[in-house]
């Protein structure tokens, strides 16, 4: 549940989601769920010339399993909070 909670904190921030098929989508994080499915709004494809498929798409739902990376804002969340939460999560399992 660690990353689910982390992404909930990031709702409203701008992120770039890179998919396993190399498509990269930049947008504002609207919502996330336990599977780390992602909803983005105000989306733009990063390399629009290479991937013209979604020129007119501004909102999307991304299945969590197709995500490779999420590029996060550097001022996302306090790093110390992440470390503490990770230690707690690791100990609990």
């Amino acid at each position: 549940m660690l990353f689910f909670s982390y992404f909930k904190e990031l709702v409203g921030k701008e992120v770039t989601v890179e998919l396993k098929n190399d498509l990269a989508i930049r947008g504002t994080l609207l919502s996330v769920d336990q599977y780390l499915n992602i909803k983005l709004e105000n989306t733009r494809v990063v390399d629009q010339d290479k991937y013209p498929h979604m020129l007119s798409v501004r909102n999307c739902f991304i299945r969590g399993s197709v995500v490779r990376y999420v590029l996060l804002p550097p001022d996302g969340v306090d790093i110390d909070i992440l470390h503490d939460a990770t230690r707690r999560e690791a100990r609990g399992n």
Partner: protein
Amino acid sequence: MATEEEIAVKEPLDLIRLSLDERIYVKLRSDRELRGKLHAYDQHLNMILGDVEEVVTSVEIDDETYEEIVRTTRRTIPFLFVRGDGVILVSPPLRTV
């Protein structure tokens, strides 16, 4: 006060816990490698890394000579979430210099 549970290294995930806030090397699927500072991880090996360098390796074959040309593409990402299902291995950084 440190408890025994915090220090004990019982299973492989505990080994990764020792690398928290340290630089690590991650080998991913699709011939990708990451080097960055480990900030968070879970049992799926989802991770958050800071100051990451990604290296993508590709092999081209010359049309005439049929020799293999190995190319690497690098980029740096300040703060990155990595989905665990792409992770192959996690390790302290290898000395390349």
